[in-house]
């Protein structure tokens, strides 16, 4: 069997393969997807692990919303036993607050880093407060603690911890 015009077809096929798989090669070097963890200037450990929150945070929020508004269950017991008040307030307390160095960020800005990237429109902040001066201080007594009160890592931990959990 003879291949006619092989001198065009074979390089063309090779070129096509390269172009078609270009995204894979470009990403092979550990290219960034543009995602990073939301800023957390207070250094408090998040309610659950980073891997869990990365995948499930919206599911957690939707579940919280239904449980609080419709069932009246307002306290979240994390897998490590810490108690949290269910609500965006709890998220905002860390992710929407100015740090000790005056670098301020709103939770809306933190969320939109990823949600904006995938062009998902969040309307949470039409009603919920994206930041509140003194929110962290106000949050502390609101974290009901049946067992272990989360150690107020606060500013102390912020200096030692590079990346929020």
């Amino acid at each position, binding site marked *: 069997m003879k291949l006619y015009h092989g001198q065009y077809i074979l390089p063309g096929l090779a070129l096509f393969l390269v172009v078609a798989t270009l995204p894979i090669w470009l990403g092979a070097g550990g290219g960034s997807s543009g995602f990073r963890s939301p800023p957390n200037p207070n250094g408090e450990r998040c309610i659950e692990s980073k891997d869990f929150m990365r995948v499930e945070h919206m599911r957690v929020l939707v579940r919280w919303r239904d449980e609080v*508004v*419709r069932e*009246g269950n*307002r*306290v*979240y017991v994390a*897998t490590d036993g810490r108690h949290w008040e269910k609500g965006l307030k709890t998220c905002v307390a860390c992710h929407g607050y100015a740090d000790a160095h005056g670098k301020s960020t709103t939770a809306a800005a933190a969320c939109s880093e990823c949600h904006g990237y995938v062009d998902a429109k969040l309307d949470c902040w*039409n009603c919920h407060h994206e930041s509140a001066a003194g*929110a962290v201080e106000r949050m502390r007594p609101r974290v*009901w603690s049946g067992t272990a009160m989360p150690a107020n890592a606060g500013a102390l931990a912020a200096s030692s911890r590079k990346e929020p959990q």
Partner: protein
Amino acid sequence: MNFNRRAMLKLTLLAAAGLARRRPLFAALASAVPSDVLKPGAALKAGRWAMVIDLRKCRESKDCHDACVHACHLEHNVPDIANPRHEVKWIWRERGAHLFPDQLDEFRGAALADQPMPALCNHCANPPCTRVCPTGATFKRPDGIVVMDPHRCIGCRFCMAACPYGSRSFNWEDPRPSLKNVNPDYPTRGKGVVEKCSFCDERLAQGRMPACVEACTCGAMAFGDLRDEQSPVVKLLRENYSIRRKPELGTQPAVYYLVSK
């Protein structure tokens, strides 16, 4: 032929088993969110929450300046909108003649007709608003509180048409620009949803009395459990003459007004 059919049946069964296998997978995913939720011991609970407003005391207060209204609206970020057609209110002052049009006449309660008195959602035992809501956004909790879930509200305003007491307001505009003071502990609402008094369910969860009851300067407002004989509301209702708004509709309001006989 037979073998082929048998093989296909086997394959079908295997495929079905494979599909069934997915279900536990999803279930595992769902239960990855820890679900053991503790209720804080501080929360106030009741069989049926109710409010008693003593109009005799309310009448005497000269200098409260509608403390109940301001406390509530400040607490819940209720906007103060100048345009009366866009007005939003959870609790407000209304003349007795407007609240009890069928129960006051020129002899009985003549003095009440002109008295401004607090009006709010009655948290009916048979709430007409929840029956007409197409999305289940408004519903009655087991403890009798009729609450709004603004997440599910689509703004159809059926509930406003159904409510015989005018207790519901619609957000014709974004309320935030009209808020002079913002309480960061309570959300605002967005344009296009209905809102109303919630009997301060968020405060009850923290073990606190409703904002209006706390703010009332003359002690005219009482709040408690109708199912509890020791509750102040039951005692007040047993010992005093009370009226409710539009009782003929059968909605069974949970807001009682004490009047002199």
